[in-house]
């Protein structure tokens, strides 16, 4: 029988040579006349160990990494096919401390299964949630999701069940389920990992949403920067449709759900739900005024559920194991688990799924192992380019939506970007304005003009720091005034939250702005 060897197809594994490693392993096995089956799995999320190869040996799955093409012959020499020792041996994958300390619910299968094998998905508890959902009424499904405490993992943390309930309550001949897979926040990659590593869980979650609210058509809006995710989704949708998990009669239930993955075109603002809907309609991604809410008048004016990838991909386990099982994880009003992404200047970057409540320090040091450069971590940005920068004094904050709100920060999509002490926080503040200027949809003035003025004022601040005291003080006041206008006057989070990175940098790291004053509240 062929020995199974797992080599990831995940983009980040490919970014450090997984494709070449897979080719080399196949060629080496052929030369040696060995019978192997290479399975291209998702990533386990220990990215510093990619390309991480696993072999299904008698004792279980044994891991080796980081494997380069040049290591391949020696792995065969060491009989890695039977799980034998090699300089790159990591031992049994399941015993890796980094994985053992996690609580993987949404990511239960990622890295374990063949992403586009429906058989594999079914063998690992796949579609149990949908089968349960098909026995329930729409209102009962919505109640399970509401009771689980699941909140939108895209950033705004709005309760998923409440959103669904609004769509369920609308009378319409057509409703839609839209998955927001426009994961544009720097430091985040959990959506990508799901789409590349376990696409069926997203498809199942969307199907459950459709059954719950009575929608018959779904769209997944995928970033154009994620070509592999799009290709994997398309393959999985095709497989699911052929096997009647999608289509006119989902599993013989008489319910219809068609699903299509649509490619975005590189506009960050399209991660905002109303802008995303405009884009799906084939228009410029201009943000819409709210109300009406998309749940009432969404895609093509019809009631629409718009949820993030992680929210939807979490629904199957909630419907499989029950609301209470999920709600038992977490703290306060943040129930369940959060797939956290460790990024930037971090030694052990990757995916850590944990119940809400772990502290930043645990993540940065226990999981992350400190900075790559070995220097102290001076600042972290949590929640993408619109998230606040946090100084070391706030590293004991637990990851919880409300605890973050208290310190004028956001958890967002759970991305954590670490910076060592070489960072210039005034430059980061300038970049926040610059990014806003590049990505602004242009509809509202505070965002469109404010961002440009912000870049100019930041340039003035860096030019006058330690020079002209009066000019400098004027510019600092101006940047605060401008931030206030953007914060309160912008139409969506792009302009409205750009002040988070700007003011948090200014408040927590005044010395980088040429100030020695005590931090003020934001």
């Amino acid at each position, binding site marked *: 029988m062929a020995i199974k060897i797992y080599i990831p197809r995940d*983009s*980040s594994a*490919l*970014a*450090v040579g997984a494709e070449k490693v897979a080719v080399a392993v196949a060629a080496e096995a052929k030369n040696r006349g060995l019978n192997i089956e290479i399975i291209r799995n998702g990533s386990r999320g220990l*990215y*510093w160990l*990619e390309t991480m190869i696993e072999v299904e040996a008698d004792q279980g799955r044994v891991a080796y990494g980081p494997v380069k093409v040049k290591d391949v012959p020696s792995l065969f020499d060491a009989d890695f096919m039977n799980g034998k020792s090699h300089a790159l041996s990591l031992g049994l994958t399941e015993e890796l401390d980094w994985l053992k300390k996690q609580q993987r619910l949404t990511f239960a299968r990622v890295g374990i299964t063949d992403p586009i094998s429906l058989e594999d998905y079914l063998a690992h508890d796949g579609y149990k949630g949908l089968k349960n959902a098909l026995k329930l009424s729409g209102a009962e499904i919505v109640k399970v999701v509401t009771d689980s405490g699941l909140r939108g993992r895209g950033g705004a943390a709005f309760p998923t069940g409440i959103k669904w309930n609004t769509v369920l309550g609308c009378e319409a001949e057509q409703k839609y389920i839209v998955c927001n897979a426009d*994961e*544009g*926040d*720097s*430091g*985040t*990659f959990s959506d*990508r990992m799901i789409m590349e590593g376990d696409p069926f869980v997203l498809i199942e979650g969307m199907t459950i949403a459709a059954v719950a609210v009575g929608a018959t058509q779904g769209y997944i809006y995928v*970033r*154009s*920067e*994620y*070509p592999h995710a799009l290709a994997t989704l398309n393959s999985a949708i095709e497989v699911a449709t052929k096997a009647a998990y999608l289509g006119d009669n989902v599993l013989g239930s008489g319910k219809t759900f068609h699903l299509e993955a*649509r*490619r*975005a*075109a*590189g*506009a*960050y603002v399209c991660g905002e739900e109303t802008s995303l809907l405009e*884009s*799906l*309609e*084939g*228009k*410029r*991604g201009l943000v819409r005024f709210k109300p009406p809410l998309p749940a009432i008048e969404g895609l*093509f004016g019809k009631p629409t559920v718009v949820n993030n990838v992680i929210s939807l991909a979490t629904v199957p386990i909630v419907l499989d194991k029950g609301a209470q099982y999920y709600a038992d994880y977490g703290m306060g009003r943040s129930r369940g688990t959060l797939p956290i*992404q*460790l*990024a*930037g*200047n*971090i030694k052990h*970057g*990757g*995916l850590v799924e944990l119940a809400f409540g772990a502290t930043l320090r645990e993540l940065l040091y226990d999981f992350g192992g400190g900075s*790559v450069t070995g220097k102290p971590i001076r600042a972290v*940005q949590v929640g993408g*380019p619109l998230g606040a920068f946090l100084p070391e004094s706030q590293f004991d904050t637990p990851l919880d939506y409300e605890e973050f709100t208290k310190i004028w920060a956001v958890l967002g999509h759970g*991305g954590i*970007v*670490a*910076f*060592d002490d070489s*960072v210039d926080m005034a430059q*980061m503040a300038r*970049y926040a304005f610059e*990014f806003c200027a*590049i*990505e602004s*949809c242009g509809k509202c003035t505070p965002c469109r003009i404010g961002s440009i003025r912000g870049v100019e004022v930041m340039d003035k601040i860096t030019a006058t720091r330690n020079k002209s005291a009066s000019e400098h003080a004027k510019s600092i006041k101006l940047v605060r005034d401008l931030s206030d206008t953007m914060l309160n006057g912008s139409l969506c989070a792009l302009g409205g939250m750009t002040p988070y990175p700007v003011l948090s940098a200014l408040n927590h790291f005044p010395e980088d702005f040429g100030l020695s004053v005590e931090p003020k509240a934001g």
Partner: protein
Amino acid sequence: MLDLQTEQDVGVNQNLEVNVDTLIAQHQHRPGGLLPLLHAIQDSLGYVPESVYPKISKALSLSVAEVHGVVTFYHHFRTHRAGRHVMQICRAESCQAMGSVALEAYAKKSLDIDYHQTTADGSITLEPVYCLGNCALSPSVMMDDEIHGRVSPTDLDALIAEAKA
């Protein structure tokens, strides 16, 4: 900046017309079909020539201004032919934390071009990108559809040499 005039004489030949007609026929009746159509045109031709705007506008019952508005709103679409390879360097925060500012300066100097420009030999177009989702292995560079992580200046040299070969 995009020059609206320079592309008008480019590429309006028989093959292009036939190709675009086929693509329009495939996508014009899809709900919200303009983006999928523009993707199909760019995938096929390498860019969206302005000469095809009137055809698109007629088929989709849009004004030429609306088509122009959509094409130019999205960073992904280009109205000019790109070099043989497109190199995208990530400018986002995670990559900045790992030295992307120096890397982009190095790329611009090595290629002797700025962002949105193409090398004199037509081999490489340089573009910024804002996150490739490879943030645990920053800094990141995308060469055409191939992503590269932990990119050093030496790695960049190798990518450039390969693209120019």
